[in-house]
């Protein structure tokens, strides 16, 4: 793997490789000193064109636990506000020779574009409404820990599918891992043609009982600049996952941050069926695994060969 641009370009083996790697890194998080020198001397640049707290800090923490140097570059308050283009920004920052650029933008395909403009490994941390591959990987990781196997599971992704990069990445990742995926939501928020990705489409939650996993999407108020639903109240009455709709033994997931009382009721957020905090925890180890997969081994920096015995892991050669 040279870049992580989308789930669409990964196969099941690649997903499993990252998840298995993450399981090995999980042990590091429990140590007193939560750090390994695997990426000592490497530089990771976080380039964020959209507000993000958890994804950015999760990448930052992941890089630091691998002993990489981290530079954060936020578009607000920078040259971007002075009108610099994405390409010029990337070329300028590339002068610092980052080994990896973690990129979030509001534009589909931006990560792939950037991967053609510089030599760093690009990690897509969200490109518009297209994909958010590390979210899908951490969700696979979380689900595998909870269920053991994902093969054959029925997973419902519920809510604003049209505006959700998480929905697209997870739909693909869950299917590649052998699950049967159904997307459900108001007809205005289910994009025409989504069924060609291989999923079932439902406009009500009448058949939700058959799901093993319920993945609720955030009702993204910040993207609701047009009236996609008549009101949040009506949305909640039809699509909110609450104690009545969520059956025992179903697993509840959500990419956060949760709008309590909208897509999820308070009681299900706090129920033991919810794995929402486990997803956040998984974020760090999975992103460690992604950075490790991309940066270790391929071009080892001369000064920082991995310390003996620290991580008994094998670098994966570039495909």
């Amino acid at each position: 793997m040279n870049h992580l641009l989308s789930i669409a370009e990964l196969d099941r083996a690649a997903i499993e490789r990252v998840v298995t790697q993450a399981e090995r890194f999980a042990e590091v998080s429990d140590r007193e000193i939560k750090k390994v020198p695997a990426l000592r001397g490497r530089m990771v640049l976080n380039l964020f064109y959209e507000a993000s707290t958890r994804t950015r800090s999760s990448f930052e923490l992941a890089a630091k636990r691998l002993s990489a140097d981290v530079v954060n570059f936020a578009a607000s308050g920078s040259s971007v506000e002075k009108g610099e283009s994405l390409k010029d920004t990337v070329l300028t920052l590339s002068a610092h020779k980052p080994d990896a650029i973690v990129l979030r933008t509001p534009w589909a395909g931006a990560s792939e574009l950037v991967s053609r403009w510089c030599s760093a490994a690009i990690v897509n941390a969200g490109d518009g409404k297209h994909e958010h591959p590390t979210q899908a990987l951490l969700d696979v990781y979380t689900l595998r820990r909870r269920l053991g196997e994902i093969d054959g599971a029925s997973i419902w992704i519920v809510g604003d599918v049209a505006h959700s990069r998480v929905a697209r990445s997870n739909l693909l990742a869950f299917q590649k891992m052998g699950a049967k995926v159904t997307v459900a939501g108001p007809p205005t928020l289910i994009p025409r043609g989504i069924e060609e990705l291989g999923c079932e489409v439902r406009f009500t939650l009448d058949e939700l009982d058959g799901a093993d996993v319920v993945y609720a999407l955030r009702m993204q108020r910040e993207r609701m600049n047009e009236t996609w639903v008549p009101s949040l109240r009506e949305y909640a009455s039809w699509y909110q996952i609450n104690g009545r709709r969520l059956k025992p033994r179903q697993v509840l997931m959500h990419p956060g941050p949760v709008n309590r009382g909208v897509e999820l009721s308070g009681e299900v957020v706090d129920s033991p069926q919810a794995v929402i905090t486990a997803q956040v925890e998984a974020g760090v180890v999975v992103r460690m695994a992604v950075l490790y997969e991309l940066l270790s081994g391929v071009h080892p920096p001369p000064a920082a060969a991995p310390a003996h015995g620290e991580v008994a892991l094998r670098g994966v050669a570039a495909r």
Partner: protein
Amino acid sequence: MSRPSPLLGGPETAARLLLSDVVALDPRTGLDGPIDVRVRDGLISELAAAGTLLAEDGEELLAGEGRRRLVPGFFDPHVHLRTPGQEHKEDLETGTRAAAAGGYVGVLAMPNTDPVLDSAPLLRSLRESAARQARIPVGFIPAITRGLAGEQLTEMAELAAEGALGFTDDGRPVASAGMLRKALQYQRLCGGVLALHEEDQTLSRGGAMHEGAVSAALGIGGIPTIAESTMVARDVALAGYEGGRVHFQHLSCAESVEALAAGKSRGFRVSGEVSPHHLLLTEEDVRGLDTRMKMHPPLATEADRRSLIEGLRSGTIDCVATDHAPHARDEKEVPFEQAPMGTTGLETAFAALYTGLVVPGILELSLLIERMTAGAGLFGLPSATIAAGEPANLALLDLDAEWVAGEHGWESRSENCCFAGRRLKGRVLVTIAAGGVAHRDRSPALVEG
């Protein structure tokens, strides 16, 4: 008052040429076979049996060698020359040079410039510039509404007196049916064709590509085909009611072809055009998010593409128009959703269509030539013909030549061509526009004498 000359510009000097042993093809006269053609004083002065004319003193000989094709020069009723105000994308000289390189002998430029072409003084000054700078004759189509704002008609009668052949708000729809009705009523006074960009923006807003499986997979806002077809249907009805003359620009989907056919079957004065990219590409070509594939209307499905081809074949769609829309490299070198709409097309139109539709046997060459020249007639201009005494508007083609689009750069100032990098068959060797040589292939393949 005599009307001003409709098109202005073209080569400065009249050519003295002998095209010997060329295979002529003119769908309007039925001419189809080897011939010698003499060009002098701006006219086709003589036609004779192949190999019978000898080059005279001072006359250049273009050898057809019994295989090069001579066709009437093409006409494009829909190009963006970006002048005034956006000369970093294109200007009158580069745009018409691109046109000449594509075998065109006449183009009509759209008014969505900066400032918008919506007043007679601006039209006059543009026409004066074109007379000096344009490689081939150019006509200008001013706006229907001032500033393309859709709120107030331009002074259409004064513009017509200044040489406008029609009116368009291209780039935007005339959203208000009431406003378009007024323009159709006013058309009785000023004449001219109303050329319409059809798009219901309440349906297309937020979209950057065709709404369908590909947009769903990419998470990019979709533009449904009904954004176009409902407006075509509306305006067919308006044109029929007012007895007006409208021309539908860049049709992109099956439902629009049906709506146009319905209008024609009722005898309404409606016509339509289709672009090479809509005839040859689909939403699948957008999957890689190459911004050269981003245009309005967006590339639709394979079924839409087939119905556009069928519409062109049957004559429901009257002509091919490139919608040549140059954009600077840095404007297109951005993420797909940020990129401006448009592809260039003048330099590749014939070769792309010949390669994609004629070589595989989908369309006859003569039909393609007819549809690539028919735009002139739709705007009340004479079509180029190969006949003695006619103005010399000709393209000499090598149908066997293969080339990669863009491999040697472009005549256009911009390079945002959706066919760039494709291997194409068929090349324009020489373009003779308004009696002069407007283009010569830059490779030295051709000529002696």
